[in-house]
């Protein structure tokens, strides 16, 4: 298998340019549109990519995902079309045929559809079969949160972890995210993989030229390793051992198995194999609190929970307790205002994919 991982970025102390979030969104959307993605879908995708850049998660941001998306569209593994036929639906469920659509389009459309159904049913679940990777999952619950609802989004992924006691990769690291609206505070957004460390976190470690902590990655023949560059070929340790394995398996049931697509579990493809459909599956759900305790009561109670967590005693050496997603919101707000610092190499990746489309730098440093 020809594996093209991220290029070697291990040279520390990288040069950085700063790009405005709004410029990066416009640039990303224009490049996607130039490759045949309908304007509305290109805008959705650009927003989801830049959402990750704002949070410092470059592996899910425009400099990683835009070149990947364009390469996949060119090679034929991903369709630029956002036309996702509804294969079946009830008042509270639906199945979308992904038709190899880009995952960020598929997941955004699915969540918005779940939100619309939850408005009357109170709770709605949608699945998408046969799409491409949907990158950072935390973005999608926030589409529900923006409508006053609790949102959940789960995905399967290419095989990375063996079942506990086993030696061969079988399950993906099954990114899963849940979000809840608050009133005075940022929404609570939990966004996690089922592995001890996510692949994008390993890429960041690699970018910084550092080594992995022990226990998160093993070589294909089962020896422990701290080299973040080999995760594609290695075995990832599930978070919490058998608990993370069990959760990975049950998330595969709710995504790959339930969505009924062409692939699931070990047959899901890696995104960097551009000519090959990935066959990713998604599960999204929305809960409208208006049918139970009401939106105001939910956000009041969420605020109280956040404040209770903030007020709780931090361990020595820990500054304070943060709520899931909170650090990312703080960083995103600052970067939305001051621009997104982007390593020069990543800016070059963007320029290369954007041939003809202009990306303005605010400053370089």
């Amino acid at each position, binding site marked *: 298998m020809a594996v093209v991982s991220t290029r070697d970025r291990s040279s520390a102390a990288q040069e950085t340019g700063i790009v405005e979030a709004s410029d990066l969104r416009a640039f990303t959307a224009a490049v996607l549109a130039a490759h045949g993605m309908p304007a509305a879908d290109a805008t959705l995708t650009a927003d989801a990519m830049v959402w990750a850049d704002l949070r410092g998660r470059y592996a899910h941001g425009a400099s990683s995902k835009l070149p990947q998306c364009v390469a996949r569209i060119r090679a034929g593994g991903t369709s630029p079309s956002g036309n996702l036929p509804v294969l*079946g639906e*009830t*008042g*509270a*469920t639906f*199945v979308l045929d992904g038709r190899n659509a880009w995952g960020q389009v598929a997941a955004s459309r699915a969540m918005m559809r779940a939100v619309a159904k939850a408005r*009357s*049913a*109170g*709770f*709605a*679940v949608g*699945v998408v079969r046969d799409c491409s990777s949907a990158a950072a999952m935390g973005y999608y619950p926030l589409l529900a949160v923006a409508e006053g609802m*609790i949102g959940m989004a789960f995905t399967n992924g290419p095989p990375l972890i063996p*079942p*506990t*006691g*086993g*030696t061969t990769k079988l399950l993906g690291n099954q990114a899963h995210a849940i979000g*809840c609206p608050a009133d005075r505070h940022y929404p609570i957004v*939990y966004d*996690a993989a*089922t592995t*001890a460390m996510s692949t994008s976190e390993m890429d960041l470690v690699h970018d910084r030229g550092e080594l992995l902590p022990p226990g998160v990655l093993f070589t294909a023949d089962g020896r422990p390793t701290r080299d973040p560059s080999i995760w594609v070929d290695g075995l990832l340790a*599930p*978070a919490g*051992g058998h*608990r*993370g394995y*069990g959760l990975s*398996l049950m998330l*595969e*049931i*709710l995504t790959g*198995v*339930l969505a*009924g697509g062409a692939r*699931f*579990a*070990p047959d899901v493809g890696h995104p960097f194999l551009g000519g090959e459909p990935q066959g990713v599956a998604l599960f999204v759900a929305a*809960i409208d*609190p208006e*049918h*139970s*305790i009401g939106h105001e009561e*939910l956000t009041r*109670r*969420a605020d109280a*929970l956040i404040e*209770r*967590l903030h007020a*709780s*005693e*931090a*361990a020595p050496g*820990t500054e304070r*307790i*943060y*709520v*899931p997603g909170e650090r990312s919101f703080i960083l995103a707000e600052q970067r939305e205002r001051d621009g997104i610092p982007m390593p020069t190499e990543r800016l070059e990746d963007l320029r290369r994919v954007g041939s003809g489309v202009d990306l303005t730098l605010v400053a370089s440093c």
Partner: protein
Amino acid sequence: MNPTVRVSAEQVRSMALPLLRAIGMPPEDAAITADAMVWNELRGAPGHGLGRIFQILERSRAGGLNLAVDWTPLRETSGTALLDACDGWGVVAGTRAMGIAVGKARDAGVGAVVVRNSDVTSAMGYYPYVAVMAGMVGLAITNSVPLMPPWGGTEVLLGNQAFAIGAPTRDHPPLIFDSSSSAYNMGKMRSAAAHGEKLPPGVALDDTGEETDDAAAALEALRLLPMGGHRGGGLAIMWEVLTGILAGRRSTTEVVGMQELDRTAGVSLYVQAVDPKAFLSYEEFLARVDRLIDQIHSNPPRSGVDRVRVPGESKAGFESEYRARGVPVPADLLERLRALCGDFGLAWPW
């Protein structure tokens, strides 16, 4: 070594049901509770079995548990319900909530039910099992008395937030994943303390807030660490959102433990049923689940591992053995049950 007596599933039920009725549970609630006890005994989880009869008796007498509950939902839509358990037994609350979710899912494809003011919920795996028996994928989440600090903290604020997911199968036993959000559950912690075993890293803090490998000190302090560090820590908070926050009554430190007999527990639950038929044909769904299980079973095991298992498989192994040979029940527990029958003027059922 406490001697045990092998008792059939029918005998377990025949002991539990009349005693629960005599304690004051309405017939339907008593039947639900007895069935769950049988299920847990059969799956090698006696801590959620017959012994709970005494807990129900003590908690209801002391005032912490209400046996007369109206289980009509407070609010409903086609896909949701909000249920007030009115301090009723958690097993009845969880089972009834899943029954309602399954009913919703039959029409709407999915159903989610939130329960407030429940007593402790016992083994979570039973509730997805209720959905599985109806041919659906079930999910159940509970909060509990605080046992874990938030990740990075030392103050115990969150329960160990047990959750379970189950899926029906065709040729294999049902798939039931039952977990806490802490690295170790209480049973494993007690077992380590009893055997004088050291804890692995990342399991518990001592009463000064430092991580400890001393199981006895950990049990004393009761500050569990989440599974997978910050991962479980985040999950525990989201489970509180779906239970204590969404149910609209007590949450975090307002939840009370089962040892406080005279205080209502104030536990919340979130249960969800998904009907696979809303998404693909049922036969296709079962074939895919079975194929996934087969793929796990054929995964080459590591050295020192005899075979690779799916979650809950060892419990399913107990079940097939215990159905054939009977459940081992400690002789002293049978004596206490016999005495309790005497107290209520009930004949010993077998």
